């Protein structure tokens, strides 16, 4: 699976100014709606599902990264939005550190394999300190997209 096949370029947010986890997730889901990838009618339900999942345990997986996610019947394939929070956000992460990089994932309802492969693809790249560093230095959605294309081409 390639990052550029699942990330929605038009929804990428590089200057997230969210003051809370909920605010960040709301903006990221809103970005997918604005990009025409989810409908206004599904937006609140998707947001609620992602927040409910966070209540079960943070998706802040360490090294400044979080992967908030849910499954929803309205999507045919995995939808991912990337956001950068330059100031760092308290996400109640597993390692207690602030989050700077967010990959929000919405997966089809009944395809757990696709969901796991999506998370595998994202975390395989996030494991790389270079990737995280370059991502955090990205100023525009175009910068992020070029980086995603570069790492896709190398893997």
């Amino acid at each position, binding site marked *: 699976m390639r990052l550029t096949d699942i990330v929605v370029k038009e929804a990428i947010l590089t200057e997230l100014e969210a003051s809370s986890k909920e605010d960040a997730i709301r903006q990221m889901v809103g970005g997918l709606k604005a990009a025409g990838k989810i409908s206004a009618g599904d937006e609140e339900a998707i947001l609620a599902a992602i927040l409910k999942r966070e209540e079960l345990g943070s998706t802040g997986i*360490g090294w400044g990264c979080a992967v908030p996610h849910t499954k929803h019947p309205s999507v045919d394939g995995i939808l991912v939005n990337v956001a950068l929070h330059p100031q760092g956000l308290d996400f109640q992460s597993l390692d207690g550190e602030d989050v700077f990089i967010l990959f929000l994932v919405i997966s089809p309802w009944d395809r757990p*394999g696709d969901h*796991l492969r999506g998370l595998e693809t994202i*975390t395989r790249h996030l*494991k790389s300190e270079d990737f995280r560093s370059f991502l955090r230095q990205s100023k525009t959605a175009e910068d992020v997209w070029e980086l995603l294309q570069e790492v896709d081409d190398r893997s």
Partner: protein
Amino acid sequence: MSVSMGKSQTETRSVELYLEQGLHLRVCSLLVSIVTPFDGSVKISHEDRTADATSMFELLQLVALKGAVLHIEANGKDPISVVDQIEEVLTGKREY
């Protein structure tokens, strides 16, 4: 199977994953919390991939679906207990 090597012991076990959603993030998080206090090392393998079970990032690389056979190897003090706890999680006997 348990092998003793001085004070450190090795326990290896193969377990069939019995979780509808496979080895998803919340399960990985639970495994990390079980393994982190263990005085030793734990590796979990699926097919040709092996993860240090204290690493969320590595566990998420395993992409194991229901029915997959996972191989657990624990080295350290009292490895049977930690492998027992991991088996309970992977076989759906422990709620989370």
